[in-house]
């Protein structure tokens, strides 16, 4: 029988069934303190084919992909990849919780920025993000959270009004279309 445990396992190219729940991933996770579900619990849900609960949690969007869990897992389970799989699945199923809409909006904005320029244009990203975030409090992403930073960056030549663009932007767009279509 095709269990959904394999679903996450296959998406992440890792054997989630190997996990014996030692919790080393949770123990080492820099974000665990603020997660609503622990990494080992997320793997457990994947094991049981109950990833439904996992894809709705905030934790998968708090994961920084620092690879500490994957590096130290005694059973060689790629937990970081499981987190990626959960994120992708939660987008497919549209189950992401309110609290993380902002994160997702930002990452979509980021990709859209790449889609059009081929490379990241930070200043433009802010604008895009604001429009995409459509949230009451639009807190400025990444580097610019501290309102004082932007001007300082300008004066240090760290922020460019006109960002770089790649020559062959057509191929970038086609790559995006081909990949996104697969979703």
């Amino acid at each position, binding site marked *: 029988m095709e269990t959904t445990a394999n679903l996450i396992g296959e998406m992440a190219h890792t054997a989630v069934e190997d996990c*014996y*729940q*030692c*919790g*080393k*991933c*949770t*123990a*080492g*996770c820099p974000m*665990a*303190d603020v997660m609503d579900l*622990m990494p*080992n*619990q997320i793997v457990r849900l994947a094991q049981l084919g109950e990833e439904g609960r996992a894809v709705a949690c905030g934790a998968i969007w708090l994961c920084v992909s620092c690879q*500490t869990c994957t590096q*130290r*897992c*005694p*059973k*060689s389970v790629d937990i970081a990849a499981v987190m990626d799989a959960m994120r992708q699945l939660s987008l497919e199923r549209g189950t992401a919780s309110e609290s993380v809409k902002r994160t997702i909006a930002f990452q979509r904005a980021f990709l859209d920025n790449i889609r059009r320029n081929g490379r990241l244009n930070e200043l433009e990203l802010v604008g895009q993000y604001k429009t995409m975030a459509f949230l009451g409090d639009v807190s400025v992403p990444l580097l610019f959270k501290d309102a004082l930073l932007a001007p300082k960056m300008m004066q240090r030549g760290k922020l460019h009004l006109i960002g770089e663009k790649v020559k062959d932007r057509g191929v970038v767009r086609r790559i995006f279309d081909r990949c996104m279509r697969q979703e």
Partner: protein
Amino acid sequence: MSRIGVFTCWCGENIARMVDVQRVTETIAQVPGVRVAVNYKYMCSDPGQASIRDKIVEEKLDGLVVAACSPHMHLKTFRRAAAAAGLNPYLVEMANIREHCSWVHKDKELATAKAIEIIRMAVEKVRRNHALQPIRVPMTKRALVVGGGVAGIQAALDIADAGYEVVLVERDPSIGGKMAGLSETFPTLDCSQCILTPRMVEVGQHPRIKLHTYSEVEGVEGFVGNFKVQIRKKARYVDMIKCTGCGDCWAVCPSKKNLSEFDQGMGYRKAIYIPFPQAVPARPVIDKEACLYLKNGKCGVCAKKCVPQAINFSDQDEVITEEVGAVIVATGYRLYNITKDQDNSKLTGYGEYGYGLYKDVIDGLQFERLASASGPTGGAIKRPSDGAEPKKIVFISCVGSRDEQHGMTYCSKICCMYVAKHAMLYKHKVHDGEAHIFYMDIRAGGKNYEEFVRRAIEQDGAVYHRGRVSKITQENGKLVVRGADTLLGQPVTIEADMVVLASAMRPSEGATRLAQMLNVGVDEFGFLSESHPKLRPVETNAAGVFICGACHAPKDIPEAVAQASAAAGKVAIMFANEELTRDPEVASVNELTCAACFTCVRACPYTAIEKAMVLDGRGNFIKNTARVNPGLCMGCGTCVAVCPSKSVDLEGFSEEQIYSQVESLAL
């Protein structure tokens, strides 16, 4: 053979009911070469056997078939009967017409027909049997025990007490092994040295035990019954005969700051030293790396001080040869080295635990020394960095065990128990202290083991957290242990004064090399392989070589001791015979046709076949050939099947015999 006797048994009604024994007898009587064919109610009974003996004599029979039950039941019986009548027992075969015929069929016609064919097969086979003499191998009734830990000590004493000589070889300066360094032992908490040292003394004084300490096995020749073992006796620089063990030498030795191996590097020893007060033999050795005189010719105060003049700076390694008939391997274990310098590239160590980086992160054996009354702290729990009494200790299980990424896949079996013991000992010594244990499962299968662990939790207040630890850092004097409590589903951070890592058990260094010398197999981790996991647990596939203790797999003291006695028993059984008698139904090579491809040598599970040379009378080389050592062959016949040139054959199951059996079934 032309004078075969066939004796068909009724087995009361058991055979006769379903097989027409009369018709069987008449039919078989017609088979060429069959001199007599008779049937009788109970062939295995005394009168039955008597009738067989009489017929052998009267009819000068040269071959015997008893058509009755399974050979596993009575072949020995009838071979004995034949021997009693002067017929070589290997000229007797059985035809199983009970278990394989009368008991499993319901049609008398078919059963009878089948019985006749079964017997005909046996007749064709026995026709081609050879008279064989049991192989007798003279043996040296003297055993070698490698390893002087508790297992080796037990094995040596048992064999010696059975009346046989024992040669005991130990790599360290004293016997005692790991157990001598333990504090108290689970589940009874009796003092390790108190129970072990008397046995050590016994070994030292036993008239039949020859002790080689500070020595290592360097080579092994020969085979079961007759091994020649080369042993390197490392230069000790102390004359064992002259020395009285008075201790004046190490009292005056100025080289003080040498880490003590016995104290797991937690204490110091002199350059001339005995590892611990109760050492056997109570004779010192000089550590040539640390001795000022041996390094740069200065000092030598020990020699000046030594009244009997036992110090000998010009001492040299010496290789001696011992002759023994059996070998017991009891080389024990070492701990997984938690730092990254590993003998095996796969074992990357646990950088995240900071062992070797933070003084107060130690392993289980080091804690044993801290808790031991004979230890560097006299049994007071003091942390290495500053000698302060730790008020909070974290114990971590499964370090290197059950970890395919950094360590071994197997469970080291004893850690659950000694971690509980450590927590207990600590709480007994430091009443206001906190003991925290990180574990994955508590494996306490053993007499009074579960109760012991519960006691640690319920009475001594050890706090168990179900989860692994990810990282240990040191911040303002505390060891910050970041683990998880998977039962709560949250990370746990504990600021401890000391951390004890229960690191995995691995076979001791050099065990694989020794195994190779003895032709004993090892598993992927270097543990020695037993001959059969259930039925031959202390035997190996090398005849005359036995294993016991942690060289076979992770084991605690009771198991190691039990296994040691088992191995000793096997040796005693072997020595109880005048000489080694082995079943002559073994393989042999036709050396003239042998193509010397040595496929058989590779296929033989008992390394009983060797590469040899055929020489002429004057000893000139003629050709290479494979040669079976009948002393080692167990008669499985694998070599016969793999030989491309059909130059190997197996007595009792020869090609000729089997083929003729098949042919006898031709329509």
